[in-house]
């Protein structure tokens, strides 16, 4: 039973990666945004290579993770393939996990590639193997966490990807700016440190600082615990919301088409 279920989740996951990795919003918000954000942050400033590395890894894992998970359900609602999935022997859990794993995998792979390239190119040195493992654990946790965040927003039962992307970005950018990515927590005021607690990126950045040059502010174990707590809370909330909105999803299907037709008529 569990083996069958895992098998279905894996099939759904591969389908999501294969079908949605090339979609416009995924490319724009997953790859272009972290790239240009990093450029505009680094250019003309005197930032150490280590700091740039930490910033890039934190941003890439967060952005790529929040790229696929929000768009899958709106696209499949619009293209009606969600109806095919719902009428097949697949449970809601399996649908959601299939999306989460796809999104996590995508983020994990892209971020790891960038990390390895950066480490080799700029010969960033690590003290021990454990520290490297810790870094990838952090990337993995953030990939999963970002995927959950995207999935949570996708509980809004719409069939327009733009609808969810607007909300995702409204959440994403504030979380990025209040995190300790751009200004190390050591140099921040106590009130900023307090605010930065709201953003999970703070804890990934801090964990990466520990791994790269021990310039961390919290204990690394605390960072891991905080990321895990975030994951647990997001998981519960997002599952509960989807359980409520999934039945509404197909009732909403076709509404955007009607809206567009009405707009055309009015023109």
């Amino acid at each position, binding site marked *: 039973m569990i083996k069958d279920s895992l*098998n*279905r989740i894996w099939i759904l996951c591969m389908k999501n990666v294969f079908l949605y990795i090339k979609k416009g919003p995924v490319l724009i918000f997953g790859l272009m945004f972290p790239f240009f954000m990093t450029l505009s942050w680094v250019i003309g400033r005197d930032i150490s290579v280590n700091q740039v590395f930490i910033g890039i890894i934190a941003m890439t894992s967060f952005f790529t993770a929040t790229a696929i998970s929000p768009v899958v359900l709106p696209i499949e609602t619009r293209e*009606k393939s969600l109806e095919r999935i719902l*009428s097949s022997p*697949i449970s809601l859990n399996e649908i959601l996990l299939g999306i989460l794993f796809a999104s996590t995998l995508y983020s994990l792979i892209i971020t790891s590639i960038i990390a390895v390239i950066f480490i080799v190119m700029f010969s960033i040195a690590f003290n021990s193997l454990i520290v490297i493992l810790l870094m990838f654990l952090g990337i993995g946790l953030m990939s999963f966490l970002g995927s959950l965040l995207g999935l949570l927003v996708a509980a809004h039962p719409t069939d327009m990807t733009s609808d969810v992307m607007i909300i995702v970005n409204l959440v994403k950018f504030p979380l990025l700016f209040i995190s300790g990515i751009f200004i190390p927590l050591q140099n921040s005021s106590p009130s900023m440190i307090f605010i930065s607690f709201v953003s999970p990126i703070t804890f990934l950045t801090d964990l990466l600082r520990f791994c790269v040059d021990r310039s961390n502010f919290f204990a690394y174990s605390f960072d891991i615990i905080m990321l895990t707590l975030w994951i647990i809370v997001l998981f519960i909330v997002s599952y509960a919301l989807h359980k409520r909105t999934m*039945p509404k999803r197909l*009732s909403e299907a076709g509404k955007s088409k009607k809206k567009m037709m009405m707009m055309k008529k009015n023109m």
Partner: protein
Amino acid sequence: MKTTQNQNLNAHPVAINVLNLVKRFGDLIAVDDVSFKIAQGEIVGILGPNGAGKTTIIRLLTGVFQLENNAKIGIFGKDITKNPSKYKKHFGIVPEISNAFSDYSVWQNLKFSGRIYGISKGKVEKRSKILLTQFNLIEKMYSKTKTLSKGLKQRLNFCLALLHEPPILILDEPTSGLDPISVKLMRTQILKLKREGKTILITTHDMQEAQNMCDRILIINRGKIIADESPNTLREQFKSTSTILFKIGGDLSAEQENALLNMFNIIKEKNDYYVFSSYDTLKDISKLHTFSKERNIKISDLKVRETSLEEVFIHLIKEDLFVIKEDEEK
């Protein structure tokens, strides 16, 4: 003749048993307390105009929409209301609008379905080849689904529905909007499936199609089943019917209008036409003629049409009300 029941003695004689289906969209009651049974090996049509609730019934039955109130669904004698996902493999569904993954090729769609239904790789390949040949789609095996015409997409939907060899087929307007060649192919295949012993539920708004293909027809209007008949009974009932339309020159007094309405079971339509359906066109026209002469009413613009499906519904609904009235009087 139902050869199927001999073939599969273990299966329950009732393939589908649906009780009290209800679905609301806001204020609209799209499906209003629908119940029906379908025997194993039977091919049953749900016939109704657009918006009658056919697709919604199918979505409730196949677990796309969640059941409301105390609705119950039984498949081969097992109550699946609590755990629908386990029984979904018994259904092969051809949807009204193609819902295959549009960025997958025909073959990738089949492979995906095969894996979801837990069919082994070799078997998926073998079955796919057979089905694609049967539905004349083998040349398009590696084409992306979104590049296929509507007719070809529908053929793919049939292949996908049949891949896991389900005992029950659910077809939502499988021939509507298709080219004549595809329509013919679909109908031939559906009848072949029936001969193979599949239980088939098919929706349509085409009376002719329902009459030619089904063992039984459920007529549905505004979410309610208003008739459950064999095609022969229906045919008998409506063979000789026609619809008579006419206008009245000048104004009618209330008394005159009352007399007219009582006489012919008239429905007043738009554009000032009076409309009624007739079992005996000539007799009714002469009756109308005499009636108008006697009361000095001027009839203009008299027309006779063959009864359309719409009018059959109206007729049936009227009969429905009539039966209820009679019951109350007793």
